[in-house]
């Protein structure tokens, strides 16, 4: 049995763990990162949009060599029914300027690049090894066990993702509520860059991101997404587990149907599916963040800590992961100076988080999950809006009605009262 002891052990090579390890190594700490996959990113999957300014904070000028796909310059919101769709598009030239507001990434490539950067900074990378459990002395975490080997450290950073069995073991997290989790199923479709640029009206330094509500998930709470990479498209559905089990539908069926939808089919035509994957994602926002994010000798970062924000139009996780990794590393560096890794000393993490955009944004959007509880959002509004615009554009020789009358009819037909509309509008304004 080995008795290696490090200053820090990071469990999990996603953006949160890698950011923490990178920061620590860069500041001279002796840090080892343990990843159960063959390489960092091999177990990771996300929709693919990274709000990337925080990455510039970690690695200034990251875009010079980072493995990123396209900056997102076009945001589309789609309300979709079975046969029709309504799009709202926002495009800005400023979104194409470095350091970029957001970029698409493919995690098998991006995480691997970030891992290479961490290794260059001095992180010792251990891949293909799974941490089986935490080593404890009393209620203090002193290291990890991989089954046949034990590794000790002054501090352990848990970055083992949304299922975080280690956070559960440490007693930080219980079983997560079903309404705080969603399953995402995603297909990656290869198409030449020029074809993507033509179909999505982009130049080579632009990219598009769709947020799709309604039929994409068969009305199950959640949504669809559709992102452009350099020479591929990421398309998927995200379905909240509580609503999914009520509706008893298959995520893969929803994705198959989405690929054949009149909006999507021409955009993916002649594309070749090259990968199919799935992952859980947090939907609870601030509400699912454990009350305590550190303890004697440990901290918890990224998805493992429930750091995701879904405001309906914007879905964030990777930026919060990187932000929390930086906040955790800075707390550890402070603890190192004092030679004190106690609960009280590591509470600097909480302070760092509160002062960073991570907690500020989580708190700002704390009411978003409540707002998105509304069934109307997923099941009725898409059909109401499509009916309304269908009526406006269709001239079938029956006399037209005033717009207000048409609007009221489309609401009534879809079971939405004026009161519902006001309530949801007000809730939305307050939540977002």
């Amino acid at each position: 049995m080995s008795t290696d002891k490090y200053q820090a052990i990071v469990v999990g090579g996603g953006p949160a763990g890698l950011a923490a390890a990178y920061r620590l190594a860069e500041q001279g700490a002796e840090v080892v990162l343990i990843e159960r996959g063959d390489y960092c990113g091999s177990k990771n999957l996300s929709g693919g949009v990274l709000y990337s300014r925080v990455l510039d904070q970690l690695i200034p000028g990251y875009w010079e060599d980072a493995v990123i796909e396209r900056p997102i310059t076009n945001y589309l919101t789609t309300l979709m029914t079975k046969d029709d769709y309504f799009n709202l598009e926002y495009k800005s030239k400023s979104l194409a300027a470095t350091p970029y507001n957001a970029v698409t990434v493919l995690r098998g490539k991006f995480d691997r690049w970030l891992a290479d950067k961490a290794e260059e900074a001095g992180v010792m990378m251990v891949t293909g090894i799974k941490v089986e459990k935490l080593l404890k002395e009393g209620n203090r975490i002193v290291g990890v066990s991989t089954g046949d080997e034990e590794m000790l450290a002054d501090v352990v950073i848990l970055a083992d993702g949304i299922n975080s069995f280690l956070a559960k073991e440490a007693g930080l997290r219980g079983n997560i509520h079903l309404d705080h989790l969603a399953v995402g199923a995603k297909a990656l479709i290869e198409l030449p860059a020029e074809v993507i640029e033509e179909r999505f009206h982009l130049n080579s330094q632009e990219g598009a991101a769709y947020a799709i509500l309604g039929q994409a998930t068969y009305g199950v709470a959640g949504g669809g997404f559709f992102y452009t990479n350099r020479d591929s498209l990421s398309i998927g559905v995200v379905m909240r587990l509580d609503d999914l089990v009520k509706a008893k539908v298959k995520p893969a069926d929803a994705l198959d149907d989405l690929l054949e939808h009149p909006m999507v089919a021409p955009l993916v035509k002649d594309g070749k599916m090259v990968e199919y994957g799935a992952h859980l994602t947090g939907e609870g926002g601030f509400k699912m963040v454990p009350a305590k994010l550190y303890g004697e000798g440990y901290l918890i970062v990224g998805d493992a800590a429930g750091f995701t924000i879904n405001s309906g139009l914007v879905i964030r996780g990777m930026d919060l992961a990187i932000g929390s990794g930086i906040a955790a590393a800075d707390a550890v560096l402070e603890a190192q100076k004092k030679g004190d890794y106690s609960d009280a000393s590591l509470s600097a993490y909480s302070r760092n988080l509160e002062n960073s955009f991570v907690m500020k944004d989580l708190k700002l959007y704390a009411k978003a999950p409540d707002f998105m509880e509304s069934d109307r959002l997923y099941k009725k509004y898409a059909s109401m809006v499509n009916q309304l615009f269908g009526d406006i554009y269709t001239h079938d020789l029956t006399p037209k009605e005033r717009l207000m009358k048409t609007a009221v009819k489309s609401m009534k037909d879809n079971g939405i009262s004026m009161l519902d509309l006001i309530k949801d509008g007000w809730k939305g304004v307050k939540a977002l």
Partner: protein
Amino acid sequence: MIRLTMADKLALNKFEVNEGEPHILINQEKCRTCGEKNCLFACPAQLYSEQNGEITVEWAGCLECGTCLAVCTKDALSWKYPQGGFGIIYRQG
């Protein structure tokens, strides 16, 4: 686009299968008392099926998302990640 079967979709992926070492074990007794059987539809890889009153899982094609574990109402699954280096290997992600 041509509609792929689930088997075709999973065949696009790279899996390092740890033969004879399932990372998902099912407690059939608990399953027999289950009315919902959420695993049968919620698994995004459709790995669960019911044969002769028993729930089976084709664990080799597991995408390691954890959905089945989360939606199982009977606590019937012993679910852990595959051993280091085994399981799904996303090339793109």
